Structures are given as structure tokens and as C-alpha cells.
């Protein structure tokens, strides 16, 4: 979105490193700042550390070194901070990860009820409002397995939104979808961006990045290789590595 005013810094990542199994360097000194209402798109080849970075932001993965501060709360060993950050950062996964034993309604209201301690009526009202927003009011009593991939992902977005988060993280939200369902999910995400949600999105949907993104981050081998405005990133990228990657993905239609 090119005509909104961004707010204060809400995510601050300072030289974060993460190594798996002693020698897989998933992140190597990554630093990044995201402002309120900003939509940051992360792209990069497979294994470059995009998911790991996202997962560090809500504490799903612990960092080895470096600091992460979310909304002025440092993500450290303090249990209270961790819990607070988890409730302020929503996450949408590639494989939806809906709770299969719960209806759509129960999926969405679980967070408000048991974490926010909302009353049942309140949680139900939130659920109904959110389902209307993602266009699935008629599916409220369905189980996840009765929904298409696109519908499941929209429910997953509603489930994350039910916690009223400050930040939404998306890890390749459309990669597991049939092509004809990608649009409906991107539409929901676009509306969210228009409403001013702070978003960090890992995706290879170039159209979405161009239209909705404020900034693009290109990662490779656990490092941020290039950070650029959307226009510059595609029109005249700074780094050779970026050019190479772009030529590859633009060739075969936006997918790695």
C-alpha cells in the first residue's frame, strides 16, 4: 500500500542467529525492523531461512543469539513475555493446521475463550464477525475436513485474527493450495493490509508482493541479501544474487 502512514517500529530483530543440528546455519546475523501497519514480504530460495525467521518472531523457535523485541517487549526467557508475544503475534501456516476435532466455530473461539478468557457469547460474537469478514458465515458448524483448502486457510486466518493480534505472520499461506483457490486467500490478506494490519509474509506470489507489499526482503543462506522498496526490488535490484533469483522465478510464473 503506497499511501498509508506507517507507525512506530513494532518488530525489531537484531543480529539473530540460529543453528540446527550443530551445523545447519538457518539464520546468520539477521537484523530487521518492521513498522506498525507495514507489510513486509520475504522471498528467497528454499532453505534460505524464511520460515525459521518467521518462527523466531513468535517464539516457535528459540534463537541462539541476538535479540528480538516485539511491541517493546523483549522475547527472552521470561515466560510472561513469551506468552504475551504469542498472543500479540498471529501466525498462518502453509498447511493451515486447523484443529480437526473442532468445528470452524470452535477453532476460532478457542483462543478468545481460553487465552483471553472471554465469555462464550463474546467469543461467539467475535467468531461470527470474523467469519463474515473472510466470507465463510455459512461454514460455521462445518469441520475442517469438509472445507476446501482455500476455505480452510481463510478459517485459519480468522482463527489467528480472533486473538486480536498486533502482527500477523504468514508462512507461504497459498503454497499448498490449488491454483484456483489462491485468489480468495490473497484477497482476505489484501483486505487485512488495507485495514492497517502489520504483516510479515513469506510468499512467492509476486503479484501480491507488488500490490500489497511496502518492502521486500530477499534472503539466501540464512542472511538478508537485499532489502528494498517494492518498485526498486523488481525494476532494478541491487544485488546479483537477487537478479538471478528473480529471473528464475519470473520465468516459471512466480513459483520456485
Amino acid at each position: 500500500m503506497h499511501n498509508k502512514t506507517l507507525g512506530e517500529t513494532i518488530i525489531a530483530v537484531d543480529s539473530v542467529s540460529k543453528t540446527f543440528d550443530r551445523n545447519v546455519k538457518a539464520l546468520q546475523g539477521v537484523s530487521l525492523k518492521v513498522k506498525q501497519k507495514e507489510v513486509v514480504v520475504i522471498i528467497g530460495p528454499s532453505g534460505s531461512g524464511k520460515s525459521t525467521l518467521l518462527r523466531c518472531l513468535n517464539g516457535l523457535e528459540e534463537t541462539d543469539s541476538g535479540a528480538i523485541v516485539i511491541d517493546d517487549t523483549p522475547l527472552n526467557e521470561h515466560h510472561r513475555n513469551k506468552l504475551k508475544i504469542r498472543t500479540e503475534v498471529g501466525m498462518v501456516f502453509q498447511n493451515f493446521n486447523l484443529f480437526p476435532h473442532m468445528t470452524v466455530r470452535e477453532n476460532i473461539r478457542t483462543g478468545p475463550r481460553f487465552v483471553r478468557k472471554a465469555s462464550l457469547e463474546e467469543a461467539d460474537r467475535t467468531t461470527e464477525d470474523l467469519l463474515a469478514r473472510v466470507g465463510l458465515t455459512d461454514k460455521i458448524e462445518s469441520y475442517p475436513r469438509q472445507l476446501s483448502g482455500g476455505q480452510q486457510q481463510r478459517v485459519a486466518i480468522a482463527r489467528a485474527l480472533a486473538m486480536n493480534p498486533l502482527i500477523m505472520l504468514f508462512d507461504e499461506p497459498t503454497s499448498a493450495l490449488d491454483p484456483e483457490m489462491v485468489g480468495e486467500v490473497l484477497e482476505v490478506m489484501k483486505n487485512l493490509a488495507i485495514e492497517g494490519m502489520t504483516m510479515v509474509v513469506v510468499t512467492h506470489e509476486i503479484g501480491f508482493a507488488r500490490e500489497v507489499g511496502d518492502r521486500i526482503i530477499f534472503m539466501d543462506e540464512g542472511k538478508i541479501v537485499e532489502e528494498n522498496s517494492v518498485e526498486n526490488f523488481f525494476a532494478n535490484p541491487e544485488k546479483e544474487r537477487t537478479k538471478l533469483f528473480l529471473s528464475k522465478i519470473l520465468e516459471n510464473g512466480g513459483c520456485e
Partner: protein
Amino acid sequence: MTFVQGLLAGANELRHKAHLFKIRKPFIYEGLKFLFFSFILVFIAVQGINGLDYRWQWYRMPDYFYKISDSGFIAGPLFTGLGLTLLISAISLILSNLIGFITALFRLSDSVTAVAVSRIYLEVVRNTPLLIQLFLVYFVISPILGIGRMVSAIMALSLFEGAYTSEIIRSGIISIEKGQWEAAHSIGLTGVQTYRRIILPQAFGQVMPMLASQSISLVKDSALISTIAIYELTMQGQVAISKSFLTFEVWFSVAAIYLIINICLSMIIRIFEQNKKRQKNA
């Protein structure tokens, strides 16, 4: 609705009902097969027993189940034995599930102590005979703790079955994919809430059939506690034989009672599962 659509809908309905008709033929066929083999088996058994020159006295058996006297219904020894078997099994079932559940959580926890305790318990219980465990509890532990025969029996049985239950529950928990934990984490559920709302409902749903067959094992294994003179079904059977010498009749009756208990259990479980399936598909 056009005529063609109507036809198609009708055909579809018929196809759905077809399974109702289909069952019949194999059912009759299987039934005949079953009768045929039962007949052969019974024939061989009767031949064998005739050879032993055993004098059947089935007419004396009802006395061991019940008596009707002036004061009304009096439960016979097999009947009271059945009651005790059911009681002990029910209590042990609850306790073994509790023990199994806690042990599974211990084994999956981050605490080194909890993991060690649970592993030692599992190894010991699963690699020694139930009979020896029963004697250990009854002759060694019960005098120390000052507990009685019944409590010893229930304790030994619960600890034994609990080890197997725990492995079943653990397998259910670890079968839940990582994404479920992560989704629960990302909406801010605490560890306990994640277990309670997300993981355990799914895990138990998956292992229900295995837990059910474990409960059948428990009823069967409970026969062993007759060895420490608990007057449950098997013990009452032995006593009845020593008094009456109706060896065949009593053992056949006792076996039939176990069979009936466990068939009832299986049926309850099946009804339960079908209900669940129907609910799911609704």
C-alpha cells in the same frame, strides 16, 4: 426437477441402499460355514468326552448361580464371583487408565527424573510375569504398607495394565502432528491448555480401539488374582469344583461368563465408535 434428473436421483438412492441387500448373501453363506464348522467341533468334543466316560450333570449347575428360597433370591458362588470380578475389573480399569495417562505424560515430559521413573516402571512391569508381580505385591509390599488382599490385587492389576495403557496413550499423543502444537502455541494456549483442548482429544480419539481391547485383556488377566485367594469368578469356580466334582460343567460355565462379559464390552465399544463416526459424518 426434470425427468432425467429424477431418474438419476432415484438410481443414486438405490445405489446407497444396495449395501443393505448385498449383506444378505454372504451373511447366509458365512452362517452356513459357521454352523458346519461348529457342528464338526462339537462332534469331536462329544466323541472325546464320551471316550472319557464323563457323566454330565448340568442340572446341578443352576444352584451355583442362584437359589430361590422362601426368603427370595440368593446369589450362588459363581454369581458373587462374577460380581467381584466386575468390581475389581472396573476399579482397576479406572486406576490403570489413570496410571497409564500419568506415565505417558511423564515419559513425554522434559524432566529427566520423570522420564527415568516412568521408564523403569515400564521396563520392570512389562518384562516380568503378572503372577510374580502379584506375589510381590501381596507377599512383600502389602505387609510393609499394611494393605489387604483386595487392595493388593487391585494394585497389582492396575500397575500391570497401566504400563500397557501408558504405551497406548503415548503412541496416541506422539501421532498428533507437530503443526497442531504449533497452531496451539501461535494462538497463545499454554502447555496444559494445549494438551487438554487440542492434543488429548485427538490422541484419545485415535487410540480408543486399542484402549478398549486393553480393557478386555484386563478382565481376562483378573483371573490370576484367584491365586491370592480372592473369591472372584475363577476362584469360585475352583471352589465349586472341589465341592461338587462338576469339573467340565463349572469350567465351561466360567469360560462362558468371561466370554459374555467381553462380548458385551466389545459391543458397547462398537456402538460407541459407530456413534462417534456418525457424529463425525453428520
